[in-house]
C-alpha cells in the first residue's frame, strides 16, 4: 500500500476512518518508519497542547457571577406565569442553600483517588514528551521484566501481545503514590498505552474514568494495583487489560513477587 496522505493519516489518528481502512493503515504503519514518525509527532503535539493549554478553568468569581445572572434570568421566567406562593419561595430558598452546601462539599472534599488520578495523568502526559517514554527499550519481555527488579518496587506481569496488536515497547519507572511504580509501555496502532503497577495498599481503587481525553482503567491482580491509561478506544484498552489479567492468572496466586515464570 502507498503512503496515506497526511490528511488521511490524521483521520486515522483521529479515529475518523472506517474499520477496514484503519486496518489497511495499521498494516502500512507496521512497515513504514516514516508514517510511524508522523504518528508519534501527532501524539506528542497533542500531549503538549493538552498539557500546556488544556488546564484553563473558569475562575470561581466568574462562576458566582454567572449563577447570579442565571438567577435573574430564571427569576423573570418564573415571575411571568404566576405569582409563586410564599411557602414555595421559602422551600426554593432552602433548596438553594442545600445546593450551595452540596457544591461546597464537593469542592472542598473531593472524592478519594483524585490525587492518584492526577498523578497518573501527569505521568502519562510527561511520558509523551520527547525522550520521556521509555527507560528500557525492548520488545522482549525477558529484558523488560528483570529490569524492573533494580528500578521499581514491584514486578508486574509483562507480556508481549504483538500477535493481538499490542506491541511491547519497553518499560519505565515512575513515582506513583510515593512508590517507584513499574510502567510497561505498549503501542497499539497510533496509540501509546502506559500500564502502571504499584503495591496495593488496601485503600481501594478509583473507578475507571476519562480525564483530559485519556481513558484510565484500574484493576487489581494479586497484590498489585494496575492502571492502564491511553487515548485509544475504550474497548481496545479493555482488550489489552483482558490479556494482562489472563497473564497474571497464569502466573499463579501471587504475581507481584519478583520471579520470572518459566518460558
Amino acid at each position, binding site marked *: 500500500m502507498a503512503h496515506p496522505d497526511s490528511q488521511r493519516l490524521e483521520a486515522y489518528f483521529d479515529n*475518523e476512518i472506517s474499520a477496514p481502512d484503519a486496518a489497511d493503515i495499521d498494516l502500512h504503519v507496521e512497515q513504514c518508519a516514516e508514517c510511524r514518525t508522523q504518528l508519534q509527532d501527532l501524539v506528542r503535539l497533542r500531549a503538549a497542547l493538552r498539557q500546556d493549554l488544556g488546564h484553563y478553568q473558569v475562575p470561581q468569581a466568574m462562576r458566582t457571577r454567572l449563577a447570579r445572572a442565571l438567577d435573574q434570568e430564571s427569576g423573570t421566567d418564573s415571575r411571568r406565569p404566576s405569582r409563586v406562593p410564599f411557602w414555595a419561595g421559602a422551600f426554593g430558598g432552602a433548596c438553594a442553600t442545600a445546593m450551595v452546601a452540596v457544591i461546597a462539599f464537593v469542592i472542598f472534599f473531593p472524592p478519594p483517588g483524585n490525587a492518584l488520578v492526577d498523578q497518573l495523568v501527569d505521568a502519562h502526559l510527561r511520558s509523551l514528551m520527547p525522550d520521556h517514554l521509555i527507560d528500557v527499550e525492548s520488545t522482549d519481555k525477558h529484558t523488560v521484566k528483570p529490569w524492573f527488579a533494580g528500578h521499581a518496587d514491584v514486578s508486574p506481569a509483562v507480556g508481549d501481545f504483538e500477535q493481538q496488536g499490542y506491541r511491547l515497547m519497553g518499560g519505565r519507572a515512575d513515582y506513583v503514590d510515593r512508590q517507584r511504580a513499574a510502567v510497561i509501555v505498549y503501542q497499539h496502532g497510533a496509540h501509546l498505552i502506559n500500564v502502571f503497577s504499584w503495591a496495593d495498599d488496601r485503600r481501594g481503587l478509583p473507578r475507571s474514568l476519562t480525564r483530559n481525553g485519556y481513558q484510565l482503567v484500574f484493576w487489581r491482580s494479586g497484590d498489585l494495583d494496575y492502571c492502564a491509561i491511553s487515548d485509544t478506544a475504550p474497548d481496545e484498552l479493555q482488550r489489552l487489560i483482558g490479556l494482562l489479567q489472563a497473564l497474571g492468572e497464569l502466573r499463579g496466586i501471587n504475581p507481584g513477587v519478583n520471579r520470572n515464570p518459566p518460558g
Partner: protein
Amino acid sequence: MDEKRRRFEAQVMPHLDAAFRFARWLSRSPGDADDIVQDAVLRAYRGFNALRGSDAKGWLLAIVRNCHATSVSQLRRRALVPLPEEHDVRDGHVLVADTGDPQHESILADEARTLDELIAALPQDYREVLILREIEELDYREIAGVVNVPIGTVMSRLSRARAALKKHWHLRASGDTHGTS
C-alpha cells in the same frame, strides 16, 4: 430552582470550562473571554428550549463562537482595540501560579507562553479547528457543526494547523531540549 434551570445546570453548565477555554483561544484574551462566556451562557439559557438532542457541548461552543464574532464586530465599529498588554491584566487573572520555586516556575511559564504564542499566531480559521479537536476533543462532524463549514474543510484546516505548529514546535524543541524535564 425551576425545571428549565435544573436541566440547564445538568446539560450545559458542565461544559463551562470548555466554553471558557474556547473563548479564551478565540479572543486570545482572558478578559474578553469572561465577557464572551457570560454573554454566551445567557444566550444559551434563553435559547435552551430550542436545543434538541444531546450535543450540548457543540451547541454551547457554537454560541460562544457567535458571541465572539459579535464582540469583534462591535469592537471594530467602535474602533476600540485595546493594547494587548493592558488587556491581559485587566481582570487580574493569574494564569500561572505564583507559588513555589521561582526559577522552576519561570521555566514553566516561558514554555507555556511560547506554545501560547504559537497558537495565538495561527489565523482564527485554523486556530479554532485545532483547539476544538485537540483540547475539546470534538469529532470532525461536531467541529463542522460549530464552525459551520463542510467536514472536508475541517480536515484540511486541521491538517495545515498541525503542520504549521509541528514545524515551529520542532524548531523550538531542537533549540531547547533541556527545559522540558
